[in-house]
């Protein structure tokens, strides 16, 4: 296939048209726009390996976080002198030990437990609330849309961490309050994407058909619009999870998350900051785990978005 634009500049590719593909969602077939380019080409096989590695890693981290109290080989994360103080990583202590001789691998796993138990509910609530707000605004338009999008735009223009700090200051440092603070942060971004998706599908022919046939709005919203927005929301949930983990990590890094005896990824790193010269492994191991986890979350989220062809996702 020769295209005139190819002869002028070799690196410029012709725009590949999007086409309709039918993919099964919830046992029924629904039309979803998929970028034709993303379905073809030699890159697919490689991408899938990375995708499954990411999913595998996330499953591993999740299993560790959930099962931490029942894992026999895991040291007690708070027991001093589980090994000599400030040992580097070794076979018996995978992540080494800190200055009190506590096992860093156990602390890392227990840290994931608290960090994920804040991020999980925060994203869950954020997706439901943000999804409802966004879909309502996108489908009904008019003043509802005006109100929701102005609030969302203002909220996005504000530095989120400042307000998380404020919320935690006013309410106090506890598990519930930190969860509330990071949930509030995740809602505007999710609502914005849900709205963009709902707008796209509200204009589609099957919605017009349903309206012409006299279907009432709850039916259209739940049977026609929502099922098409849900896959996008699911992929956004992965990205939002990453953002919320970073937000909670930042809060506990500066010492404003859940109080001191609790272990979070953020406060392990804060402790590692003071020992950077003597035992850099404290910060590097947990930092590495956090980095790989965030990368896996972003990768799965991005890949889903790409397959579903959701735009505006990264804004």
């Amino acid at each position, binding site marked *: 296939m020769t295209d005139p*634009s190819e002869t*002028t*500049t070799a*690196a*410029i*590719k*012709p*725009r590949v048209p999007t086409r309709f593909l039918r993919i099964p969602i919830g046992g029924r077939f629904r039309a979803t726009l998929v970028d034709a380019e993303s379905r073809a080409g030699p890159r697919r096989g490689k991408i899938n390996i990375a995708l499954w590695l990411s999913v595998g890693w996330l499953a591993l981290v999740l299993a560790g976080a959930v099962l931490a109290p029942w894992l026999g080989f895991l040291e007690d994360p708070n027991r001093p002198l589980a090994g000599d103080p400030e040992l580097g990583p070794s076979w018996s202590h995978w992540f080494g030990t800190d200055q009190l001789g506590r096992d860093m691998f156990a602390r890392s796993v227990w840290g994931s437990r608290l960090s994920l138990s804040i991020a999980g509910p925060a994203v869950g609530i954020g997706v439901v609330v943000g999804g409802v707000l966004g879909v309502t605004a996108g489908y009904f338009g008019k003043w509802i849309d005006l109100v929701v999008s*102005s609030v969302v*735009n*203002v909220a*996005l*223009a*504000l*530095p*989120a*961490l*400042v*307000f998380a*700090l*404020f919320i*935690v*200051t*006013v309410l106090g440092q506890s598990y519930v309050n930190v969860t509330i603070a990071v949930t509030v942060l995740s809602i505007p971004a999710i609502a914005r994407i849900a709205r963009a998706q709902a707008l796209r599908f509200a204009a589609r022919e099957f919605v017009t058909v349903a309206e012409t046939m006299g279907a009432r709005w709850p039916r259209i919203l739940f049977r026609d619009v929502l099922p098409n927005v849900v896959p996008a929301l699911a992929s956004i949930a992965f990205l939002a999870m*990453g953002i919320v*983990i*970073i937000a909670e*990590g*930042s809060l506990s*890094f*500066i*010492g*404003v998350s859940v109080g001191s005896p609790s272990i979070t990824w*953020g406060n392990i*790193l804060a402790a*590692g*900051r003071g020992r*950077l*010269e003597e035992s*850099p492994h404290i*910060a*590097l191991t947990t*930092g590495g785990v*956090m*980095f790989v986890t*965030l*990368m896996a*979350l*972003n*990768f799965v989220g*991005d890949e889903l978005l790409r397959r579903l062809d959701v735009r505006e996702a*990264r*804004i």
Partner: protein
Amino acid sequence: MLRFIGTRLAQLAVVVLVVTLLFYWMLNLLPGNPCVAAFGGAATPEQIAECEQDRNLDDPVIVQWAKWGGDVLTGDFGKSYLTGRTFGEAISNALPRTLLLLAYSQALALGAAIPLGLWSGYRQDSVGDKVVSGGAFALLSSPVFVVGLVLILVFAVKLDWFDLGGYRPISEGLVAHFKVMFLPAVTLAVGLLPIYLRLLRTDVIGTLQEDFVGTARAKGLPVHRVLLTHVLRPSSFTLLTIFGIQAAQALNGAIVVEYLFDLDGVGSLLVSWVAAREYLLVQTLVALIAAVFVTVTALVDVVYSMLDPRVRRR
């Protein structure tokens, strides 16, 4: 154009009023007397009376807020009842540090993102593009405190190229200043760079399909001229929009970076006030930050409309 700016300014005023009122009101959700809370229970009755007088606690919240707004507009930002230090003193010390940090990091991020974004968009799907995009993706997944710790470990602890341990103003010499400020600026820029890079790359790929690019190449202009003069400007609109939003995100990062590098900027100030339960100062600072960022976003909108006249007609 003037009408557009006027409308935006009116919207801006409303938003600033609502946002500050919201944060002002939130503190009143605390059980009991905010003045008692501000002292953490260690105040004399006179101190509390002074504070109550200052804060007009006898009035309804909306009147308190209006009087507070009047004070702020006339330059009276209140003070710490614990230390006697005024808000103005604390801020005038901290603000230049934060502004410099933000300016350096934005300059670094844009300075790297524009050439890299243009190039990897132009060489889409080449090996170089894949390396750049993959790198951007990895950076996007790195929390600012992890990046900062790694940079400190490598460049300050192991190699000893840079200094830690507090801010040095430019007046102490440029070398001393940048030995302290370079790592924090890089740490913050690392968070901004991939966002700018990815956006610019996507837009460049779109712009390269326009006819005028083909024309420019056909005229015999070298590739770098085409990219810099014909492709960059139409590709920079999304970048500019995101710049406003990223200004807010950059402050998130700045809070952590200032804490990590002991810079004592606005972020550190906020964190220390939060730790000391200086509720009233926290409230004023948060309300002011909100006002500043809403204004920045509005200004970006105006600049955007100057660059792209189509926006004004919406």
